[in-house]
């Protein structure tokens, strides 16, 4: 993928009204924005509206952008604020402050019990996954991943979407969602364990077909 120009160039072009540059960032960032919006609101249509509203706010606010964060982060912040307002209206409050996710992330029955000569160790190792070249259809795996993300509790979905799908660093995510590093890590950990478990289920089913 073609590199976007550095922020100062990007912002200058956008302020000059260069619509090619606007189309470039619009196409490059909207997918991520849609996914992020989807974590806050209840329908695809609603998410698309949030993204639209966000871009309108970006267009209107361009002259106020101060460059204290990256342009992309600024756009993402506008989106989260817009989406949170919308989510509230839809009565889908996403509580970000408390960690109620507890308990083990891997089924305890996968491990040997106390009294066994090797307590706490795997009964059976996690089953091997096929290498991507072994014919597992890429879009099948991607469909599994999308489904798994959709099944996650909201806070976990937000964190894993930002961290792993969008590639944000942990500090950015903590700032964006206003959570502590420890809280962020717990949510990410649970979400990743869930996604890995879903892929394991899928690969095991495929192997037994």
């Amino acid at each position, binding site marked *: 993928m073609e590199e976007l120009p550095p922020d100062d160039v990007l912002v200058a072009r956008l302020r000059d009204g260069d619509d090619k540059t606007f189309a470039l960032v619009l196409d490059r960032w909207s*997918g991520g924005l849609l*996914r992020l919006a989807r974590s806050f609101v209840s329908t695809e249509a609603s998410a698309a509206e949030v*993204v639209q509203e966000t871009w309108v706010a970006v267009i209107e606010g361009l002259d106020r952008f101060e460059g204290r964060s990256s342009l992309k982060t600024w756009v993402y912040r506008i989106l989260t604020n817009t989406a949170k307002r919308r989510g509230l209206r839809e009565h889908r409050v996403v509580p970000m402050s408390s960690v109620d996710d507890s308990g083990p992330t891997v089924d305890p029955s996968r491990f040997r019990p106390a009294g066994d000569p090797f307590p706490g160790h795997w009964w059976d190792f996690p089953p091997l996954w096929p290498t991507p070249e072994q014919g597992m259809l890429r879009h099948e795996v991607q469909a599994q991943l999308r489904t798994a993300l959709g099944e996650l509790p909201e806070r976990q979905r937000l964190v894993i979407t930002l961290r*792993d799908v969008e590639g944000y660093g942990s500090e950015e995510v903590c700032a964006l969602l206003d959570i502590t590093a420890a809280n962020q890590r717990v949510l990410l*950990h649970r979400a*990743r*364990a869930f996604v890995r478990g879903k892929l394991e289920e899928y690969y095991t089913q495929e192997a037994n077909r």
Partner: protein
Amino acid sequence: MNDLDCREFVEQVTAFLEHALDPEAEQRLVDHLALCDGCERYLDQVRRSVTDLRDLPADALPDETRAALLEAFRARTE
């Protein structure tokens, strides 16, 4: 003797990948990995899940929305 078991290992995978463990705790995980093929595989699978998530193709905006936004952008400078 390494006292970390697999059940504990799997709960520390993210902290390990984030380099959020203190050196001693990290060493215990590294030592466990050297001994335990099951946990090595588990860790690889978490890594692979993360990579696969990173490769998820993004959805696109509906065409009309995209067109309306380009229109709004052009209107801004007029």
